[in-house]
């Protein structure tokens, strides 16, 4: 027993040998979702290279290109604009690529904000308990009684009333990231708190306390790595939600400005001219948004099941 040679397979082998990789491989829907997500992300972030036009550079726009329909669905289509153009002559395909990038950035960033706030408050709440715990959890309860979109609207409204419109457009991305982040932290905090309360009574945490480590060190070094599983699941599912929330806010006109449109902004812009039969301006961004969120949610669902065998 004692002379068993130590095996230390490489990290690649460790991943391909793990249960989670096996569970991933055996779910074809998940593989499709992952490939789809990856494709969308890669294309979106390479849009400056891949996109046929730079739709938000006014210098390249020409009004004579305005409202061209998609090339395959109309005899007067133009191959320079495969998915058609909007009333300003902007290429829809390029707009979608840039817009998806922005949506993804806002989605990721707001998830990171929500996660940071949620994990920090959850750790504090769960580890120390008592009055601090009660306070944080009551705040969370109150926040949960408002829909996330309402919280985001509220925060955006406050910011708008404080600063000028000009200034607001400049920092719109940060405002919306903050607004969405602040409206989604509760779920992380609750999950982390629950996990911390389980983990902190485990003997490995007590062993660290016997050594005399400070609570902060114990939380960061011992407890945190063991509560990442559920956090990752929520983060993935929340990514889809955050993207939708941003799209909704932008659609309502309180999100990103039309000079810097995300998918939601594109859908709103298209919606304005939908009555005149120019459906492509709103339908293609809509399909992209739906596909992206669906793929991300499928990944999140799989991750939740894979990390929690009890649910299967």
């Amino acid at each position, binding site marked *: 027993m004692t002379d068993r040679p*130590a095996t230390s397979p490489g990290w690649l082998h460790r991943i391909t040998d793990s249960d989670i990789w096996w569970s991933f491989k055996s779910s074809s829907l998940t593989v499709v979702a992952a490939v789809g997500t990856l494709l969308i992300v890669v294309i979106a972030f390479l849009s400056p290279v891949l996109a046929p036009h730079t739709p938000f550079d006014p210098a390249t726009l020409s009004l004579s290109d305005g409202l061209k329909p998609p090339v395959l669905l109309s005899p007067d289509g133009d191959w320079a604009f495969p998915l058609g153009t909007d009333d300003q002559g902007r290429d829809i395909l390029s707009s979608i690529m840039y817009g998806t990038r922005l949506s993804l950035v806002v989605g990721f960033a707001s998830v990171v904000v929500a996660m940071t706030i949620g994990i920090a408050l959850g750790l504090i709440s769960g580890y120390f308990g008592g009055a601090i715990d009660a306070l944080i959890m009551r705040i969370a309860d109150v926040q949960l009684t408002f829909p996330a979109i309402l919280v985001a609207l509220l925060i955006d409204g406050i910011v708008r009333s404080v600063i000028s419109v000009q200034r607001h457009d400049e920092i719109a991305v940060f405002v919306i990231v903050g607004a969405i982040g602040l409206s989604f932290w509760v779920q992380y905090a609750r999950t982390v708190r629950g996990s911390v309360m389980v983990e902190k009574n485990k*003997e*490995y945490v*007590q*062993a660290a306390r*016997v*050594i005399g480590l400070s609570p902060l060190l114990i939380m960061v070094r011992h407890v945190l*790595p063991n509560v990442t599983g559920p956090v990752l699941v929520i983060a993935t599912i929340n990514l889809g939600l955050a993207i939708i929330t941003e799209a909704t806010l932008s659609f309502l006109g309180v999100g990103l400005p039309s000079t810097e449109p995300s998918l939601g902004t594109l859908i709103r812009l298209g919606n304005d001219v939908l009555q005149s039969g120019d459906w492509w301006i709103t339908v293609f961004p809509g399909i992209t948004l739906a596909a992206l969120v669906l793929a991300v949610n499928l990944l999140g669902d799989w991750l939740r099941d894979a990390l929690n065998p009890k649910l299967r």
Partner: protein
Amino acid sequence: MPDRGADFVRIEGLKRHFDVSAPWLVRKLEGRPRQVVQAVDGIDIEIAKGETFSLVGESGCGKSTVARLVVGLYPPTAGRIEFDGNDMAGRHSRSDMAALRRRMQMIFQDPFASLNPRWRVFDIIAEPIRAFGLAKDKADLEARVGGLLRQVRLNPADGRKYPHEFSGGQRQRISIARALASEPEFLVCDEPTSALDVSVQAQILNLMVDLQRRLQLTYLFISHNLAVVYHISTRVGVMYLGRLVEVAPTETLFRRPKHPYTRMLLDTIPDLDMTGRQRSPVGGEVPSPINPPSGCSFHPRCPFANDRCKAERPKALPIEGGTVACHAIEEGRLPIEERSYAVSA
């Protein structure tokens, strides 16, 4: 009482109460009183250097709470814990406190919960060394961890693996290696073998005895298994509902048990030598520590209890090198019995 030299660990009047009441609002709305569990209700223990002092008792008797109080995982409600002449609750500078902590470590019951599943074995064992700044440099750290792994009969190369790659017995060895990493003199062992299979239990007990001799360790050993306690202890304390009912040198406790509860516990040891001795089932169960019985807390289950036992809490009186807290023994109502055990072939 024979002179056993200066006490290395001295516990006096130790108490720990847990508030298990419902939340304040619920209590007020439903008019419920506060509820307090007296997990440890005033115990005195002295442990000499190099000996193994065992605490035995059924679940809920407070033995594990004593272990956690001694290493400082809980603050005591009352009483004092003295370690090598230092009052653990006294005012110590940060570095003095760290120096005291370094000298006492703990081994836990569950080898599956006591190791952080995300850490490599090397880092688990290195943690106390790093925390107390014992290693001069990286090479020294690696040499120390390797030496510790060898000391518990594991391979230094095992340090690269994760806990889940080991069996229960091997994990308990890793746990022991971590406890030894800070070069302690006193180890508190909370049921270190009760989660293990018997053949592995024997390995761990042998290892602990061996380490004690080589490193001059002092053990506080917590267990519910009387045969294990008999094998490993110098002296034994029997706990019932948060109190020590009897303390005695091991041979004395097993050959001449005095307290009725000790006798009852000895009756429950399975007869493996096939002498035909029947376990005599004792009626009743351990009462709730929220409302412990008055007087001697064992009186509802005790065949020798009288009115005094119901009213007056017995004091621990010295007898045959130990102490016993029993009115029946004190009054001479209960003769001390001799027990012998078959010598197995």
